[in-house]
């Protein structure tokens, strides 16, 4: 029997798709899944596609396919399928309350995801419910899922989507089939960017893909040309022998002026820091003689820099400092403040690199002590 190939948005996750296909072929579709992987790698798409196939009334027996024309497929497309139920954090929130899972207080057990999952499938054999951003389940909501996960109603399939399995209760993890989604390979991001029509030039797609961390969500942030210009300016300053923190601050402040929303400013800052990290990464590989794939600018910066100065220890300190800044951004610390102190520290660290005594210091000085990240 030939395996159905993955629908194209799931190109890079075909190991996942093969697993689903085997489940359907062997007729052992389990009732609870935990989809795990970084944002923007196709978890939601996979949940959607799996549901489409399971619910489809026109598909051949034991094959993971959807016909696209049957009643069920049409309803799902229109978003009105009675056997499809999705829960996500309410607009503008990050948490999923107990009410969404178990029903409002006075309606406990009469509405919400658990109630819906308990109903008989209206059309076919299956009923599918998805909890998106399941890391945002409140402890109460997560606990209320346990009994359902353990002994699910017949025909029900519940999919939890998580970015970080460590944030899920161990009792939830133990009850679910964990499905791991990988970051997309760079080539796949490149291809998807072109296929989706987000960019039109191969060169540009490749450049974005390299910094996208295998995530289409990250890639979508990098579409803006302005970010690349900012990267060029910042890196040119940072690769000076004595970078000026003030100039860096000013540069980035000006660039961020166009963004009024704090969330947007944070996203831009995160993307920029990712690019700075990319430089250190390239330098690290360059330094130990590993292969580096560099664009024009990066190659130039690597070429300019004195490789002897960049001891791996020193790079580690810089990386740790940038990572710390990323963590702070993640915790909603004010963007300007985080960046300003980062530039200051990096500039000092860079300036130190070229002093001869650094060699001795770096032997004894094991990096992290000056930059302690929580």
């Amino acid at each position: 029997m030939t395996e159905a190939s993955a629908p194209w948005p799931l190109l890079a996750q075909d190991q996942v798709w093969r697993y689903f296909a085997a489940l359907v072929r062997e007729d052992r579709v389990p009732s609870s899944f935990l989809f795990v992987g970084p944002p923007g790698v196709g978890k939601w798409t996979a949940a959607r596609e799996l549901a489409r196939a399971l619910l489809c009334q026109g598909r051949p027996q034991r094959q993971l396919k959807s016909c696209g024309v049957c009643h069920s497929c049409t309803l799902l497309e229109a978003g009105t399928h009675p056997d499809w139920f999705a829960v996500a954090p309410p607009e503008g929130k990050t948490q999923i309350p107990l009410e969404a899972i178990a029903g409002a207080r006075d309606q406990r057990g009469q509405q919400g995801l658990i109630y819906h999952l308990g109903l008989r499938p209206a059309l076919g054999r299956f009923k599918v419910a998805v909890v998106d951003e399941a890391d945002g389940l409140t402890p109460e909501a997560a606990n209320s899922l346990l009994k359902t996960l353990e002994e699910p109603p017949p025909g029900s399939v519940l999919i939890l989507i998580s970015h970080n399995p460590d944030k899920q209760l161990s009792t939830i993890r133990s009850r679910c089939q964990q499905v791991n989604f990988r970051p997309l390979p760079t080539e796949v991001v490149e291809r998807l960017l072109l296929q989706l029509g987000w960019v039109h030039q191969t060169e540009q797609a490749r450049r974005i893909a390299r910094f996208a961390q295998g995530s289409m969500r990250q890639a979508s942030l990098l579409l803006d040309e302005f970010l690349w210009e900012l990267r060029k300016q910042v890196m040119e300053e940072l690769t000076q022998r004595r970078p000026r923190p003030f100039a860096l601050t000013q540069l980035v402040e000006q660039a961020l002026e166009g963004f009024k929303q704090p969330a947007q400013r944070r996203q831009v800052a995160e993307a920029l820091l990712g690019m700075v990290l990319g430089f250190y990464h390239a330098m690290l590989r360059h330094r130990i003689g590993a292969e580096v794939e560099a664009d024009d600018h990066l190659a130039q910066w690597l070429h300019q820099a004195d490789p002897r100065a960049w001891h791996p220890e020193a790079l580690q300190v810089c990386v740790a400092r940038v990572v710390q800044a990323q963590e702070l951004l993640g915790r909603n610390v004010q963007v300007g403040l985080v960046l300003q102190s980062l530039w200051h520290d990096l500039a000092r660290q860079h300036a130190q690199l070229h002093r001869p005594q650094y060699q001795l210091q770096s032997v004894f000085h094991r990096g992290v002590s000056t930059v302690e990240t929580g």
Partner: protein
Amino acid sequence: MADSYQVVARRFRPQRFEELVGQEHVAQALQGAIAQGRVGHAYLFTGARGVGKTSTARILAKALNCVQGPTPHPCGKCEICQSIARGEDVDVLEIDGASNRGIDEIRQLRQNIALRPSRARFKIYIIDEVHMLTREAFNALLKTLEEPPEHVKFIFCTTEPERVPPTVLSRCQRFDFAGIRTPQIVQHLAQIAKQEQVQVEPAALELLARQAAGSMRDAQSLLEQVLALGEKKVTLEQVHRLLGTTAGGEVLRMLQYLLQGKPKQTLEQFATLVAQGAEITRLLRQLLGYMRDVLVRTVGGGPELLLHALPEELPLVDQLAQLAGPERILALIQIADQTLVRVRTVGYAQLLAEAALVRMATLPDLDQVAQAIEKLTQVPAEASLPVARGQESASPPPSSVSSSPGGKKKLPAPPPALENAPSPHLGSAASATQEQDAMALWRRVLEALEPGELLVQMGQGASSALLEGKTLTVRFPAQYKVSQQFCAQASNRARLEKALQDLLGPGATLRLSLETSAEEPQVTAHTTNLQQLRREAFRHPWVQKAAEIFDAVPVRVDPPEQN
């Protein structure tokens, strides 16, 4: 819908006390209680996920309500037993504590509790995830829980007993469910695989069982995934691919490159493994696991203490243990651990992992650093110490002149090496040994006291000692005046002297003195005299020698760390 598929964990739920795996103590106690007619009215089952709490609760319910019961061996055939196994019995109410957590639900429960069971002997309330009940709900239960009607039994199950109020705990008989040992899990998995008519390599089962870390349901969930492959024969390699883990040998090879200090090869191996489908965080975690096992071997732990390495990987692990000492492994573990935390919070898994690997591979070999220090201590004897500390005090600790800010904690400045090194300003090596003996004697005196006692801590402040006949003179540095005075207090002094006499025989005396501090004011006020300390440190022969060897310039001076 009868044709709906049920997962392994559900189909193989134990149905009798004898089928419980790894919880023999609980099963025996409960069976004994039933046989003797001493069944309590409230039980609390606690333990990690997937060790059998809910299953035991159902078995207990069956044992109590079985047509032939109460019996330690429920028949499993009667209508009651079967409906309990399905979780649908009218008299066994399985309540989800997480969804029915409020006071209203508990009030309702209390109202119904007075009603007699409809067909069986007892009305049994199984409240799962009981830790999620609100405080009010718990309190509403207290009176009922203390003296329930005769026909009512409560069974609470929870993974978090610490969230259950003590007033509830004290009203229940508590059973703690142990984690299940790996061999037992392996055996059970093998049985399931056999019944499912799939051949799974023993090594693959072992891997699954280890991943489950003591939870049977975790193991069963993993096995479920393996069975879903639809193969009739499952190999270790397939399981590795499924779990996103990497064969141990490959991880060990990477660790070998790390320990050999080959950053490039390490990265190449890493890239190969990632290309083969290893997930980066899992790979790091595996690496961490193997480092832990190597660490165990470097400190001489037996093979039974290994948690990650499979038995056949033992020789490889031992080989690696030859490559590095515990200090170095500990440093590597710290780096790997930090990296995992960072990857979790900010992502950039590949970058951070590679940076960490390079750092681990280039981490200076601590043994060599230790050797270098030893070499430094062989400074020519004519070099005299600029900082005089009494006439014959101990050599200054290297930290006082170290130009290694922050790094010195990890420097394995081995005390024996330093103590054996001739202190440049001492008259002869003989007097050094004598002084060491005297200090050792003083330490033994302190060991004779209660460990951790204040007096012991105070006594440890002593800097030097001298034994003349049966008189032990102990000197304290000037800044330890308080310690000296404390030890010299009549009662403390008597105890110290008594301990000394136990060691040296009657007549031994103790003298406690203070070092004269006139010529070294910077010791007491070192914060204000950093400049002076700096200058002196730079002039120190060791520092000059170090600067010469490393072609370096001293940058920073930190005041000496006490102790």
